[in-house]
């Protein structure tokens, strides 16, 4: 009896005193897995992290008024480990390329109780640029069909691997090529040393090899014609518990894209410091006319591309089935657009085709001191290069566009065609340049030869 009275008294005292106690702050752990060596993930990874865009957008009122956020970022060299860490709930959000995204969705759906949601893209190239096949710079191979009987390495399971399989199928050389499994870094080193006939890799490895002067592209992913895209996946339990946090993350992704589009030179300069990837390489992705269109919307065409990628993976890796309808949701990205007062449907229907969008864009010189300089015509561009070389000015890089695909190229790796009428065009692939040269009765030359014509003789 005595104990009962004491218990009731204690209960009453607690009931009266509890409301007057300060509320205990709740901590929400947000763990994000990203890839600092994969350019197409930057707007949902390194840029959001370094600019503090997630912190800026996280909800701080209503149900989140007393919440503390514990944000952690983990950098990975591929998407596979991000999926494993998400399964273990050590990461809530993951950013990765198309093939690893599919493996992520399928692995989660193979469990009884865990799921991820594909909630947004980060960026895309409509025709598949970003992946490419590179040969040693001194190789006598200039097209994919010349790889018959040769060895080609690629990181198996990556988007570049998927592109290579399709490219070899399209060219009918699948049975005649020896495929080897090699990491990007080892593949790049082997290309530099001439130890492999060709290497297929994802963004930005091909351009790193070209910029360092060790490799030359013979095949660009755009020739496969399958869009190359990256995206964001989130654990469904986390998204359902904290939908406003996910919306905040996607607002940060959108803002990261805008920041890059508004300040590409400044952005690549900072991104070089954050990632260690050369800014001249990053510029080919993130500048106006670059490989990457920063667009987080989920387009119907992307879903079709992902379904195609899944068939490739099923055939090659026997991965589990994936219910795309259950996996893909536009709810969060639409909410982010609405919060920012942006038109989701307008962005979703807009598709950038480099061949159209880049037509007529000026050639560029990255002057070490003066920054990016633009030239409306190739003669002006070549004369400027000649003049700068004459003064010994340091040029970081030069950029031109492939006439066939509209892709931005390093000037030093492009094939120039000087037509009979004195005009110039530039090409990514030698066969395209040769065909054009024959058509216009022109001459196929390289950048130094083209520049030489503009060097003053006196």
């Amino acid at each position, binding site marked *: 009896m005595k104990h009962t009275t004491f218990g009731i008294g204690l209960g009453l005292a607690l009931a009266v005193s509890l409301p007057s106690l300060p509320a205990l702050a709740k901590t929400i752990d947000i763990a994000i897995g990203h890839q600092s060596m994969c350019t197409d993930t930057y707007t949902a990874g390194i840029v959001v992290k370094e600019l503090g865009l997630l912190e800026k957008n996280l909800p701080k009122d209503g149900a989140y008024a007393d919440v503390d956020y514990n944000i952690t970022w983990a950098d990975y060299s591929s998407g596979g480990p991000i999926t494993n860490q998400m399964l273990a709930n050590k990461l809530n959000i993951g950013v990765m390329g198309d093939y690893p995204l599919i493996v992520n969705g399928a692995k989660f759906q193979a469990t009884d109780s*865990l799921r991820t949601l594909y909630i947004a893209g980060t960026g895309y190239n409509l025709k598949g640029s970003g992946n490419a096949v590179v040969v040693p710079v001194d190789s006598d191979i200039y097209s994919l069909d010349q790889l018959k009987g040769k060895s080609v390495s690629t990181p198996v399971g990556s988007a570049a691997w998927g592109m290579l399989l399709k490219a070899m199928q399209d060219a009918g050389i699948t049975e005649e090529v020896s495929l080897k499994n090699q990491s990007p870094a080892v593949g790049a080193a082997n290309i530099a040393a001439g130890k492999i006939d060709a290497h297929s890799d994802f963004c930005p490895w091909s351009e790193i090899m070209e910029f360092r002067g060790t490799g030359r592209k013979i095949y660009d992913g755009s020739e496969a014609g399958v869009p190359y895209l990256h995206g964001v996946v989130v654990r469904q339990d986390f998204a359902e518990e904290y939908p406003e946090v996910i919306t905040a993350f996607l607002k940060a992704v959108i803002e990261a894209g805008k920041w890059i589009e508004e300040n590409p030179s400044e952005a690549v300069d900072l991104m070089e410091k954050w990632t260690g990837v050369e800014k001249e390489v990053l510029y080919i992705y993130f500048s106006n006319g670059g490989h990457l269109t920063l667009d987080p919307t989920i387009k119907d065409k992307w879903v079709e591309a992902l379904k195609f990628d899944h068939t490739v993976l099923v055939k090659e890796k026997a991965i589990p089935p994936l219910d795309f309808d259950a996996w893909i949701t536009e709810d969060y990205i639409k909410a982010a657009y609405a919060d920012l007062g942006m038109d989701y449907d307008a962005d979703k229907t807009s598709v950038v085709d480099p061949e159209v969008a880049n037509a007529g864009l000026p050639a560029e010189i990255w002057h070490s001191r003066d920054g990016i300089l633009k030239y409306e015509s190739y003669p002006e561009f070549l004369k400027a290069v000649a003049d700068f070389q004459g003064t010994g000015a340091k040029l970081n890089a030069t950029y031109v566009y492939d006439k066939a695909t509209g892709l931005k190229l390093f000037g030093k790796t492009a094939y120039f065609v000087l037509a009979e009428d004195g005009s110039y065009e530039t090409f990514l692939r030698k066969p395209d340049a040769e065909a054009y040269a024959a058509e216009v009765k022109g001459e196929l030359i390289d950048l130094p030869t083209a520049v030489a014509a503009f060097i003053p003789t006196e």
Partner: protein
Amino acid sequence: MAVALRSRLTTIGDVLHRRFSLWLILTLSFTVGYYLLLMASLILRFGNLPNYARVYNWPESVWTIVRSTPSIRDMPPIIAEEYLLEFGYMNYDYGLGISEWALNIIPYKVVLMLVLSGLLAANLLLLRTKTSCSTGSRLKAGAATGLGAGFVAVTSATMSWVVCCATPTWIVGLSMLGLGVSTAFWIEPIGPWLTAAGYLLLCFSLIALSKPSDTGDGQIVEPAPSPQISTRKGAHA
């Protein structure tokens, strides 16, 4: 049948009891040796010494998985992937560094290796013990032991290589040896079956080798002492 099996299990128990210290040392040595062999193969294959090591809070990881995985059936395969230690080579030629390859110490796999090593050690002790198992049978059992140990060892490898999606999988070892990429992925799903077959072979050979000797008193006869064995025994004395 049950009596015969019980008799053989008794023989196994007797051998392990009599040579427990040696069995334990062999078990631990095989396990440690296995991981040293994996590390050596990585160093030889890639030509780099490991340049980083990481320690993971395995108990906390397991607790996180248990708390956040609603289905009990989902937990074991996820926990089985959790690392305790990682030793690898970081390539700093590009970006901020890429983990090129790594040897991952995964507790679940370590347990599997300890079981394998224990069975292997027991088989070896029985092979050196004079039972009434014929020479032909001993040879067959020895071959089965080697095959079984090979199956389990190959499928328990926890090396990761960035080209194999950078996750530790047993086919990394096969890929490193030059097996075709598509073939390696094609045979990956049969890994658990190979592991099970390996353990079964080891168990069968253990049973086969444990046929009690016909010395009349049912006692196990130790092999004739060799200088090497004497030394080992002396060391344990």
